[in-house]
């Protein structure tokens, strides 16, 4: 049992390194504007946000719908603190260049983005986490709306730029290594987000498998029994909420980097719903499910189903039906089908493990060998 676990984690590490190497190589050989990179970059961001939501909804049993709000805080925090000083005058053109006159390095700003979301979550959690399931959902949704309204308030313009865009902050492309003339030598614009998200997800997985993770699951299974086991409900719920929001904040900052602009009106409840649906597709209570779900979701909506919007799909040319918006309809129908008929999602509560894959292939191999003997 023990050795299996060790083998398993070793194998997993090898596979992950393999993925990173693959991403790195692909990035060097494929053109930078390939659709694949859009999917990989956005997918990996959604993976982080979905896993963080899963920590809350799937592992702690708290049905929270505040994810978009915390992403917004993270995105704004990142944007506000990283816009180069020289660019501030043009970005904050209606607010005299804003009141912040310095810029932080990207890694620090990313952590700050998470911390800002976490601090907000800690404050919000105090009243909200005492509520029962569906009240919690609506209260967190409400908080996300309030946060959005506050960030758009023109009195806060010198900090948030009011309802105007934040832009010109470092994006993924700034991770590329360039020579003195600004020409790209080594592309890192997809690899770095992969590494950042990898670290974040690793931390979440470690947390889930720790003593605290077990306590979270106990709360999910039965609050009364968990309390009788000496688990302080509020403390642990708050912990899960704050940690989940931290990573949502980091995810929001990454999304800002990907989109290169930030506008509060983009972080509507629809964004939370999309992330929730990703979690459902992957399986509530499965980290790997959330990751796979994210890439599938983004690949479908940004790439594979594009044809549904532009007239031709799978060789069928029907511009009357396949016009703008049809993709999302098909998508919503697929999601409803999953919700209704395939409630456990792709992974259920299981994890996709390297050892599992190895066993799977071994079984097939052995079967073949057996057949050959016959």
């Amino acid at each position, binding site marked *: 049992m023990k050795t299996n676990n060790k083998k398993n984690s070793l194998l997993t590490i090898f596979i992950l390194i393999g993925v990173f190497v693959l991403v790195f190589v692909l990035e060097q050989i494929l053109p930078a504007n390939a659709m694949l990179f859009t999917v990989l970059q956005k997918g990996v961001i959604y993976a982080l946000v979905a896993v963080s939501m899963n920590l809350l909804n799937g592992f702690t049993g708290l049905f929270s719908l505040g994810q978009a709000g915390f992403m917004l805080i993270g995105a704004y925090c990142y944007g506000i603190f990283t816009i180069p000083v020289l660019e501030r005058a043009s970005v904050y053109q209606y607010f005299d260049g804003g009141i912040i006159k310095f810029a932080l390095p990207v890694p620090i700003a990313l952590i700050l983005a998470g911390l800002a979301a976490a601090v907000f979550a800690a404050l919000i959690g105090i009243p909200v986490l005492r509520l029962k399931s569906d009240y919690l959902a609506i209260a967190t949704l409400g908080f996300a709306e309030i946060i959005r309204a506050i960030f758009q308030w023109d009195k806060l313009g010198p900090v948030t730029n009011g309802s105007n865009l934040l832009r010109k902050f470092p994006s993924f492309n700034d991770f590329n290594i360039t020579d003195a003339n600004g020409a790209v030598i080594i592309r890192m614009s997809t690899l770095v987000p992969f590494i950042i998200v990898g670290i974040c997800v690793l931390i979440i997985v*470690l947390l889930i498998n*720790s003593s*605290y993770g*077990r306590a979270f699951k106990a709360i999910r299974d039965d609050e*009364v029994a968990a*309390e*009788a*086991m*000496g688990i*302080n409900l509020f403390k642990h719920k708050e912990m899960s909420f704050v940690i989940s929001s931290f990573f949502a904040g980091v995810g929001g900052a990454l999304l800002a980097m990907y989109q290169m602009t930030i506008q509060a009106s983009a972080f509507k409840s629809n964004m939370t719903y999309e992330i929730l649906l990703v979690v459902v597709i992957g399986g509530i209570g499965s980290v790997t499910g959330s990751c796979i779900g994210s890439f599938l979701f983004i690949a479908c909506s940004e790439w594979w189903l594009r044809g549904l919007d532009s007239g031709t799909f799978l060789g069928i040319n029907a511009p009357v039906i396949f016009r703008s918006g049809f993709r999302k309809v098909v998508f919503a129908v697929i999601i409803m089908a999953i919700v209704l008929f395939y409630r456990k999602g792709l992974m259920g509560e299981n994890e996709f493990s390297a050892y599992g894959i190895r066993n799977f292939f071994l079984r097939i191999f052995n079967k073949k060998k057996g057949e050959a003997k016959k």
Partner: protein
Amino acid sequence: MSEETKSTNNCVLKLEDLTMQFGGVIAVNDLNLEVNQGEIVALIGPNGAGKTTAFNCITGVYEPTNGKVTYLGNTIVENHPQGKMKKLYTGENDGKYSNVVSQTPDKITKIGIARTFQNIRLFKSMTVFENVLIAKHLHMKQNVFSATFRINRAEEKRARMETESLLEEQGLLHLRDELAAGLPYGLQRRLEIARALATSPKLLLLDEPAAGMNPQETQELSDFIKQIRDKYNLTILMIEHHMDLVMYISERIYVLDFGKLIATGTPAEIQNNQRVIEAYLGVAEDA
């Protein structure tokens, strides 16, 4: 006050004038009860007599309307009618208590009172091992960072060892990787007790441990309860309907009816108590 209780005897749990009123209904009415170190005490009474409500008041699930609970000489729960209840209250001893002491169930568990539930409440999606391991969480020296980054490795290992040896003692070790929900009923009850023991309690509250068991299993259970009492140096308060079990293992019995204490004494005294018989069988008319 606390000195007085300490000086009387080795009293572990003491309920004074405990009253729980829901709206206009008094579920527990002026209950006074004492459990001494090492005793097995039974709380019996017809369905709806308020036994489980009393448990819930002790363990912090409910806040009683009036009265006080003392554990090892320290007040752990105390309340008096407040707010709306001030007007509604129809119980006794109004005005006797002025302090308000209220704790969440996890605090009560932490100071050494563990319980089981009438309708088994295991963590269904977890294995037998994990169910017991959860109970070790509260005594582990760690915080969320040390746990996430595995700095608490020694603590975690200790918790796992303790869980393993506890399961071994309870004869459940061979089932460690089974899902709790998949166990037969009798074993689920045993697992729930094992899980309660894992919190290292001094006082164990058992809510109908023999519910749904056949006579054979019940017999085994009574020996088991005595065994764990001696082995872990426990004091036990239990709610039970199986009279064989109650009479066989309890040192003293309290009888509740409609929330009120109607009798208390040794098993022999209770068996011959007219009021108890009436409460259980009803009053025969013109008999």
